[in-house]
């Protein structure tokens, strides 16, 4: 081993410890028998059992998954449309501004997104009576606004890598322009769509800030429940819940990345 690669492996080790030590300790403590978070009392899965008997957490989980599922689906539909238009419209005046608009929610601070959406929902309710109150619908709309931007960016970058002559070849072989999207474009970008869906799903599941702004009473998401429980002190129950969420998010992210890799090879 050269000195350089030794240095590299040591520094990457530190990086990994820095990133994953807190998560690892959280996972270990979720199996702690003792009620006291900081005192190790032996292995146990009793907090997981307790978790599944806690109605508040079950309800929140249902809300979270419902929101994440619908958000991901809506985001994919809207994001694909936006990405397709942006990459296929050619050059038109103001294209830069429009593509900027699409990706703005990516860099907007969540607090601002959350606050502005809350104001929008409240004034809409006053004006047209919809959305009546805040709850799952408003969380879905809010999550879709920023998740859609991710999907649009992913789809757009895939489309820009796609050979233009593919569509011409299809037309040359007798495909009409209106059938091109479903025959050629959609199947080719489908891996991007799947990874976009997974990404949107995990981001929606993950979000605390925006959801806190736009949710109503009785419609808390999982991160909101965890956060409120922590204010009363960290319990091993929260650790167990967090561990499950980490697992789900990790599966989602890995699956999304795997999809991207597969598609890169195919192009």
């Amino acid at each position, binding site marked *: 081993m050269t000195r350089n690669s030794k240095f590299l492996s040591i520094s990457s080790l530190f990086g990994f410890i820095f990133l994953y030590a807190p998560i690892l300790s959280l996972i270990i403590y979720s199996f702690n028998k003792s009620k006291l978070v900081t005192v190790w009392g032996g292995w146990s899965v009793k907090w997981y059992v307790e978790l599944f008997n806690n109605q508040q957490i079950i309800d929140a989980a249902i809300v979270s998954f419902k929101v994440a599922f619908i958000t991901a689906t809506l985001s994919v539909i809207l994001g694909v449309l936006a990405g397709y238009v942006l990459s296929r419209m050619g050059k038109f005046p103001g294209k830069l501004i429009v593509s900027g608009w699409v990706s703005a929610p990516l860099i907007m601070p969540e607090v601002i997104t959350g606050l502005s959406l809350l104001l929008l929902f409240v004034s809409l309710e006053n004006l047209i009576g919809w959305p009546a109150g805040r709850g799952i619908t408003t969380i879905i709309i809010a999550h879709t606004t920023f998740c859609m931007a991710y999907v649009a960016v992913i789809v757009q970058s895939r489309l820009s890598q796609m050979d233009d002559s593919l569509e011409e070849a299809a037309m*040359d*072989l*007798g495909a009409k322009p209106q059938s091109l999207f479903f025959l050629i474009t959609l*199947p080719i970008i489908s891996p991007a769509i799947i990874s976009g869906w997974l990404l949107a799903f995990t981001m929606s599941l993950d979000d605390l800030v925006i959801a806190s702004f736009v949710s109503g009473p009785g419609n808390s998401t999982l991160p909101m429940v965890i956060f409120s429980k922590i204010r009363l002190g960290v319990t091993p129950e929260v650790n167990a819940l967090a561990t499950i969420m980490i697992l789900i998010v990790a599966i989602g992210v890995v699956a999304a990345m795997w999809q991207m890799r597969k598609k890169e090879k195919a192009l």
Partner: protein
Amino acid sequence: MTQETTIPLWKQDGAKPFIQIKNVTKKFGEFTAVDNVSLDIYENELFCLLGGSGSGKSTLLRILAGFEELTSGQVLIDGIDMANIEPWNRPINMMFQSYALFPHMTVAKNIAFGLKRDKVPKKEIELRVAEMLSMMQIEEFAHRKPDQLSGGQRQRVALARALIKRPKLLLLDEPLGALDKKLREETQFELVNIQDKLGVTFIVVTHDQEEAMTLATRIGVMGNGIITQVDEPRDVYEYPSSRFVAEFVGSINLFDGRIYEDDVEHVKIKSKKAGCNFFVNHGISCSPNQKVTVAIRPEKMKVTRRQPDQEYNCLYGQIVDIAYMGNLSIFRVKLKSGKIVRVTLPNLVRENRNPLTWDDFVYLAWDYDSSVVLTS
């Protein structure tokens, strides 16, 4: 072969051209990519468009396929004006430079694509795809995706996909560009065979003059959006119509000169750079004293150490460079005027006892009918 004896269509008076390109111009903004091109192509031809990069070859093909709108002019195929016929309704298929195989479909699905669009019955599609797969010798890859194929295999799939609809005209944009030299040569002959077998008219774009020579019934030489010469390969090489064609097709030595004796039977030309006078044994339509260019191919010269017994067409110089190419050797000979002349000699024997070598003084001479006189 029987074909040799029949007169080709383009030499028959009153033969009906299959494709008529009439004064076609295509501009991209201010830039003229195709400039007033007129061209007739006949049934069963394997026509090569030969030209350098950016000369407008692809643009002309795309016009035929219907992907570019004309700025002016007209394209007729089988007597039908193509102006209002969309690409998907034209009796034309194209093989793209990048092959453009659909990455999400298997080889068999790629090939079947065109037939499915036409709602051909499933049974017939299967039959014709199988037929095409065996013709292109790609049966074993039928269920692979394009990214699991080599360049040569992809090229076959692309050709199969373009041929399966039995188009009247097949356009091929640099079909062999991605192949290595050996595979290229094999595939060139295969292309000719396939074309012969199916009787489809081919238009092949290439920037490789050897490829054009091998494939074509006729070659159209293109430069700057203009077609400068249309002729059979042999004539393009032996009788280039302009300096541009002479230089683009093969290599050639050019001498600027001035006509000093003009007769119906012969012409004599004086050239300062050459250091000798030229004699051409046919008349040329030109004005007296006109400036012309005499062009002589490198392989048409005889090289001797002793002065040949000939007054005209005889250069004298020193060998400055030799390149051994295996089958032939290329000599660069420097004349007194400083002009470099390129000569090629076949390597007829394995060991030459008295080979020409660097710094030798040699005479380069050629027959009266070997050179070409270019007036433009």
